[in-house]
């Protein structure tokens, strides 16, 4: 670089700074005046001498022999129905100094809890594989290490409101990744803001908070029934770390139709496989250090892609199954990996839900793809399988936090996640599914309810995530949506080559189109969703209603590493007109 260039650059930079400082411009103003766009000949383009870009990723897990331990099953947490416990529940915060502050529970009257659960979040020792260390993981409750999954489960029913006392007994002096501040989010639940587990509503060790789960249909419409939800910690800036530590659970929600009883005599019951044949498969992706302890790269801004796959808390377990139908509830907890699942024998199965919400009709498939936080219920029939061993295999290549490469591996090369060991043929009274089995009709899309159309554009600016050009500020409301109206949202990925699982809290939605192409009947996305797999340069149009509660909710990327770097916006449901 010649000397006068350097001088003029310096001078220009100095003048720039002085101008900006003199004018005391705000971020918004700078955007407006274009001062925040890249460009202006302020800097030489030569940049730094760069080695091949591959930050982090230096850690490889120790070898773990696959399929030597049985898969732990999630067992439903038995709540209390004792009158004393129910009487103790209050809409307002009690005078107990240990109870964390919150707004009074909305719609309390008529939705008073009928079941009470206690979560005690604290470290518990667990060995996720014989070749790995016994290590502290964080869980919501105690569990039998020999048989039970460390992940908690609740079986809930529509019309049966519940209350969760979420106790934070994590160590205040905790060292290492994770933050012992917590806020439990029940993902996809139709819950009031104060019970949503908003990222900014975290509370500290030694205190507790109550979460009211009314288990009510959105807008009283039973077509809005949710089926497979999950809860996880959502602490602002630390969600990925705290989820990685283990604060994960599932929440199964039943009603008259999806009753959780395959022998239900109610003619309206769908009779999907139930009891021990209704099995959540919670898939976590991790990497372990040389000591066999779960390792989290605190200096990776893009996403954590691990080399170990856990099902229900254990690395590559086996599962002994009967030769009959099963309902598997697949959940991808991330933190950052996307999947495409197949069975090693290529067998077909029925997809019956998307994001845990029943489809109108089963869809026959031989693979399902899942971005982070998505849930899929599938019904698999082992009765006609001749092999004695079948694997659940991931065939989607995914190397870094930008998203999957798109390359589909052959099942022989893909990652074997779970081994099924097939046993005897047994009685099966669950319904035989066909393409015309009615599951749950979709709510009508009525455009006359739409009061506003909004654009949400996710972008990347200097390694930071912006939504509609704005950085996240918890006190700035990016959208006010009027209660009892509907809106059209256009969600756009303008971040270059990145894929993002975009999640909105509170209300599920229906996807109308992707890049202008309408979603047709029979498409698995013709469904009720709460996560969108947003491909590079894609715009997804959704229809969403706002009902029953008011308050703040986030819209964010569920690659939780992106989320922890503020890839988030805030919308509020309000009584007043939308803005």
């Amino acid at each position, binding site marked *: 670089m010649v000397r006068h260039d350097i001088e003029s650059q310096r001078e220009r*930079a100095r003048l720039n700074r002085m101008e900006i*400082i003199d004018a005391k411009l705000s971020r918004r103003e700078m955007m407006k005046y274009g001062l925040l766009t890249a460009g202006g000949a302020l800097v030489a383009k030569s940049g*730094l*001498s760069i080695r091949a870009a591959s930050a982090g990723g230096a850690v490889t897990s120790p070898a773990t022999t696959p399929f030597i331990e049985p898969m732990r099953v999630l067992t439903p947490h038995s709540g209390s129905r004792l009158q004393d416990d129910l009487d103790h529940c209050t809409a307002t915060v009690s005078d107990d100094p240990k109870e964390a502050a919150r707004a009074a529970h909305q719609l309390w009257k008529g939705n008073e809890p009928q079941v009470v659960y206690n979560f005690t979040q604290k470290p518990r020792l667990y060995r996720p594989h014989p070749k790995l260390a016994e290590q502290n993981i964080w869980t919501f409750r105690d569990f039998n290490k020999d048989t039970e999954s460390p992940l908690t489960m609740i079986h809930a029913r529509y019309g049966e409101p519940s209350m969760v006392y979420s106790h934070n007994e994590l160590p205040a002096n*905790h060292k290492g990744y994770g933050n012992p501040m917590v806020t439990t989010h029940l993902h996809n639940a139709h819950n009031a803001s104060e019970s949503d587990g908003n990222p900014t509503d975290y509370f500290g060790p030694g205190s507790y908070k109550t979460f009211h789960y009314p288990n009510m249909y959105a807008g009283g419409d039973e077509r809005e029934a949710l089926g497979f939800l999950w809860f996880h910690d959502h602490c*602002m800036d630390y969600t990925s770390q705290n989820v990685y530590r283990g604060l994960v659970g599932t929440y199964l929600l039943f009603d008259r139709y999806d009753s959780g009883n395959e022998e239900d005599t109610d003619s309206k019951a769908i009779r999907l496989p139930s009891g021990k044949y209704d099995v959540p498969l919670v898939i976590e992706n991790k990497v372990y250090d040389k000591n066999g302890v779960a390792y989290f790269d605190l200096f990776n801004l893009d996403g954590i892609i691990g080399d170990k796959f856990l099902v229900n808390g254990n690395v590559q377990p086996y599962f002994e199954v009967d030769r009959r139908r099963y309902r598997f509830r697949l959940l991808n907890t991330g933190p950052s990996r996307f999947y495409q699942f197949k069975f090693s024998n290529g067998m077909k199965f029925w997809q019956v839900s998307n994001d845990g919400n029943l489809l109108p009709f089963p869809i026959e498939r031989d693979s399902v793809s899942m971005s982070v936080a998505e849930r899929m219920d599938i019904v698999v029939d082992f009765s006609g399988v001749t092999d004695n061993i079948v694997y659940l295999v991931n065939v989607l290549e995914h190397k870094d936090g930008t998203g999957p490469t798109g390359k589909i591996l052959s099942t022989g090369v893909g990652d074997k996640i779970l081994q099924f060991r097939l046993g005897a043929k047994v009685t099966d009274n669950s319904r035989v599914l066909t393409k015309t089995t009615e599951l749950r009709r979709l709510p009508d899309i009525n455009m006359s309810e739409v009061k506003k159309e909004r654009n949400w554009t996710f972008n990347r*600016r200097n390694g930071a995530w912006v939504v509609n050009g704005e950085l996240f500020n918890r006190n700035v409301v990016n959208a006010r949506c009027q209660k009892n109206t509907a809106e059209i949202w256009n969600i756009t990925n303008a971040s270059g080559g990145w894929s993002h699982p975009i999640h909105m809290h509170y209300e599920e939605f229906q996807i109308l189109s992707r890049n202008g192409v309408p979603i047709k009947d029979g498409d698995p996305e013709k469904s009720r969703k709460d996560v969108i797999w947003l491909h590079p340069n894609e715009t997804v149009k959704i229809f969403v209603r706002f009902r029953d509660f008011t308050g703040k909710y986030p819209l964010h990327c569920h690659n939780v590493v992106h989320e922890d770097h503020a890839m988030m916006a805030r919308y509020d449901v309000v009584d007043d007109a939308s803005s």
Partner: protein
Amino acid sequence: MDMRRRQFLVSSAVIVGGVLLGTTMADLIAPAEGESFDGSPDGRFPNIVLHGHDGGAYRFYDDLIRDKIVLINMFFTGCGDICPLSTQHLVQAQEMLGDRVGRDIFMYSITLNPELDTEPVIRDYAETYGVGPGWLFLRASRDDTELLRRALGFVDPDPALDADLETHIGVVKFGNDAIGRWGACPSFADAEEIVAGVRTLDPIKRT
């Protein structure tokens, strides 16, 4: 520490070796060990030498990170895009954090353009923005800067964007070395968000 990282550090140490009088080669090769926590990075911080706008020389881990609450971002004075805004917001954050900055909280802005950003230039930059005590503007050799940039994760996975100074990573890492807790947010985020992040680093006192 795994071999890959150790070799990487050894090769870089050759470049900085002998910069600081009284520093042995072993000091420079050794990454900062710090206290090891379950599953947390091991030897994450290269102990490279940086020079501050105050004229001081500092080893990255031993003098700047160890047992401190810190904010770290990377910048260069010629940046007309996000650095002016980041620095402004960090100045506001410094004001909001009050006298803790310089006592138990320390702020570091490390230049990505050390040839251009000489000591007088970064001193002038700090003065222009009204930076208070407890916040150092720092420069290291180009190779050490690159080593540090990678160690801190200020890397874009797109090689073209990564090679372009104008699209450098505008993120501030905040961390508390004593408890191994680290988070990050955009460096040009509103100061209240940056401060909210820093406040998550205090060990929690039971009331």
